[in-house]
């Protein structure tokens, strides 16, 4: 019976995740993740990317628990910065900055931090239960998907990441195809043909993901700061004691639940990103609030406006693990990097993952529960410690980031050439940020490009070289229609509005 099967596997996962060494990895990951989330300039994606060299030595279960801890922790930590400093650490915490910062300015920083941490815990726990229940079922179904369907799913992911995020589909597409171009460098998987290496030996293995992520984000951020943000000042809000009154609890918990159930589905579909569910949750809470609380929105700060979006954010982030573990399709930059980590171990996430590496997967899921508890402790009573991190002056912070970037990039392939490439990519990152080109599609294109190409060519082999194989099969036809809708609908709406 499937319920007892899931239950016994989950218990096995707890046994693996609960060993002292894995608990230690989980704790270090969560702590590091919180620190990263609190500090501006680094995100979970880049941090995991910089730490990818450890996959050479640490065994897969422990390192995936560690990386997942960072992913999660960053989300908890990012809320702290949004509330106290109005500079969101992560896009998902952008909405928290709206109301949370207002609450902090009116002297209720503590309540905002409390509702954010507890809400994240509630949402994370519920979402993890949903993952536990749905992921194995989805994996069972997904085994029936073939290369044509996979290719169309990836196409959908490409489309949504470039068309839905950011202001301009054109610029998003440009970024995506730059990423695809970078992914072309190296040896073709199927024929062994060398492409775009220009006879440079180091490029034979392609461009390392770490290099691109660290170059575009971390070093690019440092460059951008030196160029444009030297004179920007951010004021730190005062901390108050972290607890909520009875009425604040009463207002928060329905928002937490609504946020969770809004956020989780968005995380699971390749619609990419946590912006949509968090904004949706914010709009919903604003609509549903009683009149006397409604006027707090945008003025003194309404607690529902923090509780809902935070829960939605956490649930969405947990949800992104579903397509990663069941289909092998990353729906965010961090999950794309996690995919890279799996690949370093020679593990290819997909529906078979639950059969071939079930100990790893269930230990990872179990560690999510454990991680949530750890993060609640790290973020509620210990939040004062993280706030101190915010006092590190920017020059030292960004210069320190450069040292970590060097470790991450050099540690992967022991090549100084990579460091030069990293610098070049950092310049590209500055350019992209300056002219409003989204960076996430570059990473997604780089990592998924080779995978999508392989699926496409496999699909064509199955279809004996005919392109109709993609529309002959109902599932892939359906996905292609969705892709077309995603591309066309915003244009139609805009045209309709103008008419």
């Amino acid at each position, binding site marked *: 019976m499937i319920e007892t099967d899931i239950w016994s596997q989950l218990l096995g996962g707890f046994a693996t995740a609960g060993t002292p060494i894995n608990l230690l990895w989980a704790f270090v990951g969560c702590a590091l993740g919180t620190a990263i989330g609190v500090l501006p300039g680094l995100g979970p994606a880049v941090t995991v990317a910089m730490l990818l*060299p450890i996959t050479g030595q640490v065994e897969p279960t422990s390192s995936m628990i560690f990386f997942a801890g960072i992913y999660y922790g960053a989300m908890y930590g990012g809320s702290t910065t949004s509330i106290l400093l109005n500079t969101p650490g992560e896009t998902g915490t952008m909405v928290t900055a709206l109301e949370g910062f207002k609450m902090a300015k009116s002297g209720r920083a503590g309540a905002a931090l409390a509702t954010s941490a507890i809400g994240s815990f509630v949402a994370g726990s519920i979402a993890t239960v949903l993952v536990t229940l749905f992921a194995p079922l989805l994996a069972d179904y997904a085994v029936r998907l073939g290369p044509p369907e996979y290719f169309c799913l990836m196409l959908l992911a490409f489309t949504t990441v470039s068309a839905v995020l950011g202001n301009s589909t*054109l610029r998003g597409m440009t970024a995506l195809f730059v990423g695809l171009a970078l992914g072309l460098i190296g040896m073709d998987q199927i024929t062994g043909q060398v492409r775009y290496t220009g006879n440079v030996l180091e490029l034979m293995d392609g461009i390392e993901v770490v290099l691109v992520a660290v170059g575009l984000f971390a070093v690019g951020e440092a460059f951008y700061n030196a160029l444009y943000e030297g004179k920007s000042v951010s004021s730190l809000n005062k901390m108050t004691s972290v607890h909520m009154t009875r009425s604040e609890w009463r207002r928060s918990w329905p928002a937490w639940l609504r946020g969770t159930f809004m956020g989780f589905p968005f995380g699971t579909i390749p619609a990419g990103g946590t912006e949509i569910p968090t904004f949706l949750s914010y709009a919903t809470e604003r609509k549903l609030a009683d009149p006397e609380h409604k006027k707090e929105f945008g003025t003194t700060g309404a607690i529902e406006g923090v509780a809902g979006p935070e829960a939605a954010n956490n649930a969405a982030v947990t949800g992104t693990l579903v397509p990663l573990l069941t289909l092998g399709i990353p729906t965010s930059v961090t999950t794309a990097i996690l995919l890279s980590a799996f690949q370093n171990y020679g593990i290819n996430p997909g529906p078979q993952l639950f059969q071939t590496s079930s100990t790893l997967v269930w230990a990872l899921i179990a560690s999510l529960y454990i991680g949530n508890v750890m993060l609640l402790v790290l973020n509620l009573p210990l939040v004062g410690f993280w706030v101190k991190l915010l006092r590190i002056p920017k020059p030292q912070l*960004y*210069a320190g980031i450069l040292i970590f970037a060097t470790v991450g990039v050099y540690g992967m392939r022991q090549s100084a050439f990579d460091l*030069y490439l990293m610098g070049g990519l950092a310049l590209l990152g500055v350019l992209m940020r300056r*002219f409003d080109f989204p960076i996430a599609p570059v990473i997604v294109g780089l990592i998924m490009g080779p995978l999508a190409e392989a699926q496409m*060519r496999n699909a064509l*082999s199955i279809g004996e070289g005919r392109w109709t194989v993609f529309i002959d099969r109902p599932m892939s036809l359906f996905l292609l229609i969705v892709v077309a809708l995603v591309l066309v609908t915003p244009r139609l709406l805009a045209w309709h509005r103008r008419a």
Partner: protein
Amino acid sequence: MQNSSRSTTLQTLIALGALGVAAVLAWGAAQIPSAAGYSGVGPAFLPWLVAGVLALCGVLLLLQARRGGFHDVEPPTGADRGDWRSFAWLAAGLLLNATLIEHAGFIVSCALCYALAVRGLRLAEGQSTSLPRMGQDLLTGVVIAAPVYWLFTQVLAVNLPGLTSTGWF
């Protein structure tokens, strides 16, 4: 003083850059033998596709740039003009790091990079760095780089270059 991101000249250059990349891709694609084999399309297919789409994107970007600028641009945060002097210090630090790391070792090279970068970032904030302060920065750089080096080489067994071959420095 207009924000440099609104400059249509720069935007045109970016669009031309995209076209340039597309051209390079097309040139490279032409050199790939496109033996199709069983899979219907060969290793040259995707390169041509990417080159084609990037060329299209470049043309559309160029049109937008010449007709008044990119659409729906969100103004970037920060100053209107770049502080290239500060940037130069940062770039110098990174270049030095890349050239020195395999000769002087991780700790020395990163400490120097740190010191130069801090100088550049301080310059961006309008502060100047005196010589003793730079010495302090160098020391801080060592204090950060050394534990990182030890953590990665001793505990995590990642290969990082050292000045000596003891594995500690």
